[in-house]
């Protein structure tokens, strides 16, 4: 899987939020997308999914996916975990997981028994409405749900926001495992220590444009980038 994005623009009504974004994500890598609040990180993920008005080129293994509807983008192998988790509150944990797999049948890769055995807390609460879970459990559920479509690239938006430290560790370990099992991850993460620990490359965004993209080591070696674009 290789994702190549060039000249990506996005709008909310008249407000022109993404102003020509270029970047790439390679197979199986974790790429951290950083930036201050409101620079357009979430919008970048939504634009890739086709959930906002956008223009530009998005190539997935050479095929254009920038004219597709969200469900078609998912069927090409992208998956999305939104900032606010969006578990279906009245459906049970298990039903939420079932809906994550649009194929309707298991096909190797990540399966429901897989994720339930990896997270005993979710297994115990399989028959409980997802709305009754804690924030951290909902985050894990949302990630597992998207994972069950066995994507080639997962877009994950601020998964550790508002979670207790133990949960943050679980989320972090899951992301590492997702990548280790062959699915690339584009991660929007506010906690720099976590992002730098697991990402192999870093993208930095300012006002709807990328101002830095390089390896994590190069980012760490360039503290002025951090000062100029990330610290508040």
């Amino acid at each position, binding site marked *: 899987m290789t994702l190549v994005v060039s000249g990506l623009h996005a709008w909310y009504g008249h407000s022109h939020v993404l102003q020509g974004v270029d970047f790439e994500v390679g197979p199986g890598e974790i790429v951290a997308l950083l930036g201050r609040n409101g620079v357009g990180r979430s919008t970048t993920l939504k634009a890739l999914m086709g959930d906002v008005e956008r223009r530009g080129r998005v190539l997935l293994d050479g095929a254009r996916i920038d004219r597709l*509807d969200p*469900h078609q983008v*998912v069927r090409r192998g992208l998956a999305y975990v939104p900032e606010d988790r969006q578990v*279906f509150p009245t459906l049970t944990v298990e*039903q939420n997981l*079932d*809906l994550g797999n*649009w194929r309707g049948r298991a096909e190797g890769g990540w399966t429901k028994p897989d994720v339930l055995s990896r997270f005993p807390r979710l297994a115990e609460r399989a028959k409980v409405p997802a709305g009754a879970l804690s924030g951290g459990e909902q985050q894990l559920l949302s990630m597992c749900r998207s994972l069950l479509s066995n994507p080639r690239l997962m877009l994950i938006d601020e998964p550790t926001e508002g979670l207790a430290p133990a949960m943050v560790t679980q989320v972090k370990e899951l992301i590492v495992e997702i990548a280790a099992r062959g699915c690339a991850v584009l991660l929007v993460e506010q906690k720099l220590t976590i992002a730098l620990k697991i990402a192999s490359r870093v993208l930095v965004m300012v006002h709807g444009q990328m101002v830095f993209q390089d390896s994590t080591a190069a980012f760490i070696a360039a503290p002025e980038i951090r000062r100029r674009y990330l610290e508040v």
Partner: protein
Amino acid sequence: MSSLLILSLLNGLAYGLLLFLLSSGLTLIFSMMGVLNFAHASFYMLGAYLGFQLSAVTGFWVAIIISPILVGLIGAAVERFGLRKVHAQGHVAELLLTFGLAFLIEEVVQLVWGRSAVNFVLPQILRDPMFVLDGVAYPTYRIFMMAVALGMLAVVIVFLRTTRVGLLVQAALGLPRMVGMLGYNVPRLFTQVFAVGSALAGLAGAIGGAVLVTEPAMARELGPIVFVVVVVGGLGSVFGAFVASLIIGMVQTLAIGFDRPIYAMLGFGSPGEGGLAELWSVSLAQIAPLLPYLLLVLTLIFRPRGIAGTRDL
């Protein structure tokens, strides 16, 4: 219990269940798509007229199966080629479209079937009394209506609870975009839900048309009440719509069945003439048509999520 009370309760139940058949579809459409479908009661009217027309050809029993299917297909076409096109312009455009459609359907119905009521005749077996209570015969027909409505309730609930598509509909009631982000074609799901909702309204018309009179004004008369049911029942809740339908059906029927002036109900004697006497002499039956709207206003003010809604309006 007096036999009058029993008969009134049964009538209230029959009317309430018919309302539910009509509103269950609207509640799904409104909650899922945010579309205030003004033409929903028009689909009910179409169901009645098509049921009437087909009865002459195929007989009643086949007609009440085919008519809802035809109405469902019309609904699907309206969603696919009408609502979906104006969707980008927002909910006001959608509302205006269904508003226009309601008038269009009424005019077409008048053109084809005339301005007065048509003579929708039931098969003999449904006209025979089911039982006789204190000399009052209770028509089989009303029992049949109740059975059909309860049967459909069971089918809809089992479908929503146990099938994959049912789960998707439940999920899409609250978070339609997320359903799309999991790989499902949400616009197509909308069309399907709209078609099923319209077909249920058509079924209500086909089985209710004979009792409630099949005439061009029938959509206009029932339309607003159906919205009351949806709001009072609560967004996203078929069960809430069920309870609200029964409450409104009962309240309206009982108010008419136990028609008394207000002063008598409060235990006073006749107020005679003049002053506020006119007000006190208003009868319950005169107030009945107003009760659903009172309920609507009170619900919006004091309990915006209705009886069992999953979110505020």
